[in-house]
C-alpha cells in the first residue's frame, strides 16, 4: 500500500492540512475530505465540466487533478462564491437570467465563467458559446447561461472599464 502524502491547501480562504492517498482525485478530496459537496462529480473523465473549480485562479477539472497536485495551492469552490443570503455578482446574474434549473452543472459553469471573464474580452456570443463548450447543461439549452455571461461581462465592463486583459485581434 503506497504511503499517504501530507498536503496543505487553502480552500475558500481556509487553510487545511491533510494526509491523502496519491490516487485521491481533487474532486473527491473536496467532497469527502473537506465536506464541500458543492463541487459536483459527473463523468469523472473531463468531459462534462461539473467538477470545475478554480486552482490559483485558473479553472481546472477537479476530476483530472490529483489532490496531491494541489499541495500549496489556493482553491476556490462554489462554497467560496456566496450563499443564499449573500450571493456573488455572478450568482445574481444566473438568478436574474434563470441560468439554471436543476443546478447540477452550475458550480462548474460559475468556475469556468469566472476564468473566462478574467481572461477574455468575450466580444461575441459565438465566442462565449465556444468557451462554454467544455461544460454540459441538460436543462437550460444554454441560452440563459449565455445571457448571464453577457450580463456579467457588461456589469464588469461598467465597474472596471480599464485593467481588462486584451485578447489578440
Amino acid at each position, binding site marked *: 500500500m503506497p504511503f499517504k502524502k501530507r498536503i496543505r491547501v487553502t480552500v475558500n480562504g481556509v487553510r487545511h492540512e491533510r494526509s491523502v492517498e*496519491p490516487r485521491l482525485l481533487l474532486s473527491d478530496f473536496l467532497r469527502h475530505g473537506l465536506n464541500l459537496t458543492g463541487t459536483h462529480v459527473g463523468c469523472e473523465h473531463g468531459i462534462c465540466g461539473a467538477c470545475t473549480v478554480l486552482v490559483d485562479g485558473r479553472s481546472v477539472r477537479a476530476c483530472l487533478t490529483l489532490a496531491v497536485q494541489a499541495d500549496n495551492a489556493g482553491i476556490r469552490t462554489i462554497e467560496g462564491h456566496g450563499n443564499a443570503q449573500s450571493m456573488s455578482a455572478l450568482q445574481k446574474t444566473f438568478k436574474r437570467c434563470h441560468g439554471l434549473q436543476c443546478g447540477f452543472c452550475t458550480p462548474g459553469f460559475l468556475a469556468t465563467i469566472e476564468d473566462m471573464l478574467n481572461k477574455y474580452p468575450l466580444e461575441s456570443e459565438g465566442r462565449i458559446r465556444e468557451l462554454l*463548450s*467544455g461544460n454540459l447543461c441538460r436543462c437550460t439549452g444554454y441560452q440563459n447561461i449565455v445571457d448571464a455571461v453577457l450580463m456579467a461581462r457588461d456589469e464588469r465592463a461598467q465597474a472596471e472599464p480599464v485593467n481588462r486583459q486584451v485578447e489578440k485581434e
Partner: protein
Amino acid sequence: MKPAPFDYCAPESLDEALSRLGNSPGAKLLAGGQSLIPMLNFRLLSTDLLIDLTKISELRGIQPHGRSVRIGALTTHQDVETSPLIRERFPLIGEAMRHVAHLAIRNRGTVGGSLVHADPSAEWPLLAVLLNARLQVAGLGGQRLIEAQEFLVGALTSSLSDDEILVRIDFPALPRHTAWAFDEVALRAGDFALCAAAVTLSTGGSFLTGGPRITDARIALAGVADTAIRAPAAERMIRGQRYLTLELVDQAAVCARDAISPNADLHASADYRRHLCHVLVKRLLGEAARSSAAFAPSSAPVVEGK
C-alpha cells in the same frame, strides 16, 4: 471510476526525475494529466509509481532561440495561447490553441504531454509535423533530437523510450514571407477533430530568378491517419508555382484526399473524413494564398478565377 493505487513523487529537477524513472520500471510520467488521469480513472492504465514532472521548472517556458522558438515540454496550452512571442513568430500556433479542448483542459494540459500521448487527432502533433519541429529527449545516457515525423510512430505511440523524458520542442523559423491557415471540424468546439488541417505557403524569388514563386508549401492533416501526417504529393503540386488557380487548389486537395485512408468510428465514416480533408485543404490553401497577397501584393500567389 477511481484510479487503482499508486505511489507518487514530484521531483524538482530533470536529473532526479530521470533517475527515479530509471530505477522504477512500470512508472508513468505525469505532465498535465488531462489524458493520463482519465485513463487511470477508467483503469485503462495502472502504474506502481506516478512521477509528476510539473515541479521541474526547467521544463517550462517559451524562449526565442535565434529565429526559432523553443517550448518547454511542460508548458501549458494556455501559456502558449497567450504568449507574445508565439503571437509574433507563430500566430498559426496561437490560433490552433483555441481549438485544443476546453479552457480548463488548456489550463493544465501541456505541449509535451500532448505530443507524447500522440493522439492522432490532436493539434500539437499536427503542428509539429507541419512546422518540422525537433523534439529534445533526455535519458540517463544523454540527450537526443528527434524529428517530429519520426517521433510520432502511430496512434498513441511515440518513439520515446520507457526511460526517457521529452524536454522541449524546437520550432524552426518559417521563411520570411509565409502565409498560413489552420482549421478543423469537430462536433462541438473543443471536441477531438474529425479532421484538422493546416497549410503554409512561402513565397520568394525576384525577377533575377524568374519572378516570385511559391518556394515552400506544406500541408498537414490530423484525424485521418494513425498519426498527424503531411501530404507530400499535394505539396509538390503547389511548390514552384507562380500562381494558384482554383483548379490547382482543387487538384491538390483531391490529391491530399486520395492519399489518405482514414478509419471510421462512432463520429464519422471514413468517406466523411475524406470529404472533410478535401474541403479543408481546398479552403485553407485559398485562405493562405489570399493572406499572402496582403503582405506581397505585387508578387502574390493569389487564387485566380472565380
